[in-house]
């Protein structure tokens, strides 16, 4: 990786406050999680001050400024719900920065909205799943939750809860080791 000219670094530092997080990381708004991570790594290689030890103080300050924005962009975009909240912010106005606590709070809200389902059928099957859980019938709960997911295929909370349930089911299934049967 070639070092970047100091002029370019300083120029970037002055405008980085106006760039949105996708621009900061030089990725398309449609980038997937892997591309976001790779972009973060690439930007770190490019702008971490350790690459420019011989640089003057102003350049190093500019690098620090860029690095901080790169980290911020990554921290928001790497999480699906934070990213969704950020995309909404971008659409709604001229803001390009989102404070992490706000991003996290918005993500938390989304999570709780999603948890119980957003469509009538999603909600219905989620309610059934919950009832199954009360009875500790994990397999039935899993079935109902999977059904709920078919109505809301993008519901990340359902997906997470399904994973959780799968673990539960696996954990509660009796192990069939011959010598354990009494």
């Amino acid at each position, binding site marked *: 990786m070639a070092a970047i000219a100091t002029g370019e670094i300083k120029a970037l530092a002055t405008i980085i406050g106006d760039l949105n997080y996708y621009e900061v990381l030089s990725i398309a708004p449609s980038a997937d999680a892997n591309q976001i991570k790779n972009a*973060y790594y690439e930007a770190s290689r490019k702008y971490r001050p*350790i*690459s420019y030890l011989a640089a003057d103080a102003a350049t190093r300050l500019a690098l620090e400024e860029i690095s*901080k924005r790169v980290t911020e962009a990554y*921290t928001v975009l790497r*999480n699906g719900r934070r990213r969704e909240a950020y995309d909404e912010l971008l659409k709604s106005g001229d803001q390009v920065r989102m404070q992490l*606590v706000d991003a996290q709070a918005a993500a938390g809200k989304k*999570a709780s909205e999603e948890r119980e389902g957003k469509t009538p059928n999603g909600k219905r099957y989620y309610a059934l799943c919950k009832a199954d859980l009360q009875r500790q019938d994990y397999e039935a709960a899993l079935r109902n939750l999977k059904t709920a997911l078919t109505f809301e295929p993008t519901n990340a909370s359902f997906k997470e809860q399904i994973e959780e349930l799968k673990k539960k089911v696996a954990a509660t299934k009796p192990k069939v080791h011959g010598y354990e049967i009494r």
Partner: protein
Amino acid sequence: MAEYAIGIDLGTSNSCVAILRDGKIEVLPNTYGDHITASVVSFRENGEILVGNAAKANIIHDPKHTISSSKRLIGRYFFSDEVKKAQAIYSYRIVEGENHGIRIQVRNELYALPEISAMILREMKAIAEANLGQEVRKAVITVPAYFNDNQRQATKDAGRIAGLEVLRILNEPTAAAVAYGFGKGLSQKLAIYDLGGGTFDVSILEIGDDVFEVLSTCGDTFLGGDDFDDRIIDLLADEFLAAEGVNIRSDRYAFEKLKLAAENVKKTLSAQQSAEVRIPDIIDGPDGLPRSLQRVITRDTFASLTQDLVQRTFKVCDEALQQANLIAREIDGVILVGGPTRLPLIRDAVGAYFQKTPKTDVDPDEVVAMGAAIHAASFVAVQAPAPTKASATAGATQSAASASAPAPPPSAFLLDVTPLSLRIGVAGGFAETIIDRNTPVPIEQSRKFGTFQDNQESVKIRVYQGESRTATENEPLGEFEFSGFKRARRGEVEIEVKFEIDSDGIVNVSASEPETGKVASMQIRLSSGLSDDEISNIIAEDRTSRVKTTQATPRPGETRTSAPSASSRPAAPSAAESYPGHSDDLDLGADDLAQEIVLLDSEPTLDLESSSSDGLDIVDGDLPSDLPDLEMDSGTESEEEDLFAPVGTDLSKGRP
């Protein structure tokens, strides 16, 4: 002559120094040929100061003047639990210094913790110089990932006092990962399991070729190899008491012997199925005749004594994995760090937990220093042609050519996280999160705050690190005042506070009033720590030069004095007045309504504590506004004042 930069693992129990030279990592041995040196400092009657193994040998004979485990105290407040614990365990005198700081009293002299650490660093520097045959001035020093800003700053100060330019404060687990993965082009997720003498740290990292990204880090600062010793000590002392009717704990000398024996048993069990303790005439019985202690301890006994300690490490691992949004099975490799990880008991348990045999190809005692050395080298590699003053002529032509085009560095890019949430104190005794723990650094965040009362003249910005919403349950980092803004009704003055955590994990905070553009800024300085002036004084007084090194090469420019120099500093207080008055300019969180602030912008923050860094599992019932709570009642206030009532009072109610 090439300029070298070393990597130093400044450990609680042991320290280690390494260097990357001609593309090879070398761990540098001390004169005894050991790769690790005890982090112990012993003050002799004649003014000489011993560091390392010679000092450790003094623990039994002169425990009052022999300082071990000083790292547990560095960057702490005198009122912290750590101090109480240390006072119970160690025989050296721990007294209160200025600003709730800690001093070690040795005869009639007082030493600040960074000064003690500087003596160890100086010895490590001397070891390096003896091996390299030239002066070394630059170093990367490692700290536990879990160190807060105060502890990091104090460690940096120690480096300065030792005459080192601290290139970087690096987290130990990150260093370990670098030592393991550097130059291998790996693409892996790693867990670093570091069980030291007194602390436990676990970090989850992802390596992508030359990038080392820390995904999460968690720790327990009250869990380490020493706790394993304690279990053996308890067993032996209890059995002895039952059999012989004497309590070994009541005799300091006997107890030190037992402690040493217990540690040896533990170490022996790393290599053998059982270990025998045999201490002849350890103590006199009730009849005045000497009694001996003899007992065989098997691995099984040891395992059952310490099972819960091992389980506690996995609680921390659970947390770290959850914060990294991973499950144990997804970890590609486990690296062990720290002396106790030599125990088969630990190795097996760790293997079972991660469902993976831990890597044993790196030495758990050396891996951290090795990583630090690799990182240190990348700081000098780029400047390689830069001449020192002495060799200026020889290097001049080269350096002119390279000044404009820095060479591509053989670097590892370390993307670390902050281990603790950064918070600001607001009205009501709360601490609002600004930067959540396990957020990558460097990072900058800002928040808008408003005044709490009409016509308020100034605000006090109090900064904390920790995971509690209650301000006083966190570690106070420092505070500063901001004034001179317009007078207005409560909440109408808008103050923007900017928080920054740099790549070393060090915190900067500044406040401004956007309307007038007025700015107040400060680097949060260790409130219990040393001022720049104090550091300069310590350097000028140069007590660290009394360290009688056993290393061969004399340090350039050093005058060796064997007698203590006449001290320009105040003598130590007598026992009766062992708490020198503290200065009042820092009252660490005592509420003053006239300077209080409230959070202005946006929604009330959630308590993010239970959330993973990726935002799962937010508690949803907990949302409603905090604001009603902010109405102060005097009860809270006085309680608060109580909590910070300093100096010489009953410490047991000082902090929860």
